[in-house]
């Protein structure tokens, strides 16, 4: 594992901490709202995995691209997307980030470089590669960062994207959040190697990189290195971040297929208290950290109120935005 970086400054750490706290509080509330019936359909929480999102987000340039999965709330928030339209989208309201058309699994905010959440496992790896190719062609210096799960390493598009990205030296960073499970099946039960991403790196001529995904500093260090490498034209990286989701896979899944001790052990390694400890040890005072918690809670409350107050989408939007002309006409 990459060691925790010595050189990360206090401000960066505080930014990461704030991001993690905001993600956590928003998702905890989203979960409650799901049980209240306000969040409809499905939702996949990244509670426990926030350090990956935060560690990368602070290493990215504003114009870099993020591609993530249905478990994408953290990554979307971390790029600076406001909470209210995210919650409103989960509620299916007209002020939702996607006008209610996409839902929890497809959060996207092009203005923030959040280029989409993808709900078919593996699909976004080639798409992220394409964005990186575009940056390379346009010589824009942008980098694409693509997050996906351990289960995703077994699908074909993972393989195709990794190979083509290396051949093209595309500026893309592939980040496997190994949370140990696909939906309900432990990754080890269906994977030929122990480290689903890192043990595949050499198949693409890449270095295996494993990082403690619950340590924002450590994530940040490998992120900064990989992004710099991509930006310098040296090609892609594949990073495996070891982490855990505290809850179930989605919706009401209680995650009972996991041994209690395993859950307890990982919860003891919760990235947010760890970050708090580290900041305290580095001399940040309790009040500053408490203020972050309170501000985040207040932000969530405001966002929730806004989303609750938002109207349902108007029926007129049903048939808009299939085409670039704004409509959906397929005939004259």
């Amino acid at each position, binding site marked *: 594992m990459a060691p925790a970086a010595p050189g990360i400054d206090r401000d960066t750490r505080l930014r990461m901490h704030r991001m993690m706290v905001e993600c956590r509080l928003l998702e905890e509330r989203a979960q409650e709202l799901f049980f209240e019936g306000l969040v409809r359909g499905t939702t996949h929480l990244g509670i426990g995995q926030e350090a990956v999102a935060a560690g990368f987000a602070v290493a990215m340039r504003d114009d870099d691209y993020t591609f993530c999965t249905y478990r994408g709330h953290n990554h979307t928030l971390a790029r600076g997307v406001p909470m209210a339209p995210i919650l409103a989208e989960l509620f299916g309201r007209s002020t939702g980030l996607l*006008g209610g*058309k*996409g*839902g*929890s*699994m497809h959060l996207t905010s092009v203005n923030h470089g959040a280029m989409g959440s993808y709900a*078919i496992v593996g699909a976004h790896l080639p798409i992220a590669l394409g964005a990186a190719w575009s940056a390379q062609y346009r010589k824009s210096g942008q980098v694409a960062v693509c997050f996906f799960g351990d289960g995703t390493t077994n699908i074909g598009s993972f393989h195709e994207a990794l190979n083509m990205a290396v051949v093209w030296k595309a500026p893309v960073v592939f980040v496997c959040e190994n949370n140990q499970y696909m939906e309900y099946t432990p990754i080890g039960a269906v994977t030929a190697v122990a480290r689903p991403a890192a043990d595949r790196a050499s198949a693409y001529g890449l270095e295996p990189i494993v990082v403690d995904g619950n340590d924002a500093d450590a994530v940040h260090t490998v992120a900064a290195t990989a992004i710099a490498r991509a930006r310098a034209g040296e090609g892609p990286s594949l990073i495996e971040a070891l982490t855990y989701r505290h809850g179930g896979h989605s919706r009401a899944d209680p995650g009972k297929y996991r041994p209690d001790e395993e859950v307890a052990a990982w919860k003891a390694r919760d990235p947010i208290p760890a970050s708090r400890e580290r900041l305290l040890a580095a001399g940040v005072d309790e009040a500053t950290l408490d203020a972050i918690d309170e501000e985040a809670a207040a932000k969530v409350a405001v966002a929730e109120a806004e989303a609750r107050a938002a109207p349902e989408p108007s029926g007129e939007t049903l048939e808009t935005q299939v085409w670039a002309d704004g409509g959906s006409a397929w005939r004259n």
Partner: protein
Amino acid sequence: MAELTYRAAIASAITQEMDRDPLVVLIGEDIGAAGGVFKLTEGLLDRFGPERVRDTPISEQAIVGAVMGAAMTGLRPIGELMFSDFFAVAWDMVANQIAKTRYMTDGQIALPLVLRTANGGGLRFGAQHSQSVENWAMAIPGLKVVAPSNPADMHGLLAAAIRDPDPVIVCEHKALFAVKGDLPDGEHVVPLGQAAIVREGADCTIVALAAMVPRAAEAAERLAADHGIDAEVIDLRTLIPLDAAAILASVAKTSRLFTVEENPRVGGWGAEIVALVADEGFYSLDAPLVRITTPHIPLPSAAVLEDLAIPTTDRIVETIVRRLDEAK
């Protein structure tokens, strides 16, 4: 007669057939220990063991390909694709390999296999987890396609699909999982290729499938009660083989056809039914042939929008009343 849900009818049919034939095996993602994300396969691992009920990696091409390879070498495998949208990931295996291999080898290779999948909308899952893909499968020669509308048919048609010597795509409608109904005692098998007349009627024919069947049936009751329109409702049950005779016989009687489909408008199965009747039933018609469909759009996730998109009982009633009225 026992009452059971559409959801439970799936495991009951698989159990019936696995008990009967040791060559029947089941694979898919999270189907074993977890019993499936929709709890469709609960209890099967315990009953039949890990050799017959196997969890797979997230590898739809390998799942479908392996099912094909097993079928051509003596097993009768069932593969589960968790959501029917994921057929797209394995479409080469389905459309180019499974559908064509018997023909290309002039009958040397037989493929007695089933691909089961959770199909359809209504659960606010958005555009990539709500599609009705029965029309994709219907357009590929070499695939049989089943889409039951109630628990007894779910059980009986799935059993028939497992026994069938050809590849069968079984569309299990997500919005029907909780629906209850009676299952006849004893071994229950419903032959493929036979539509069911859900309601007899004289004024118009409504052809529907899967989750649209209860809506069409309810619409027919309201048409009778509120508008004096006596509609005949046909549940296609299987798209391939198609019970064209049942449709043509009904239209011969009613002279008017409405189809109610959940898939997007263009190139849906409704167009095929209309085209069939517009050719072979033309002279019995006395009004335009009308398709009631989801618009030609991806499905939105917000509840109000999804409900607007998919044909509702209200829309069926309103359309039929208006179109029959116009045709007077």
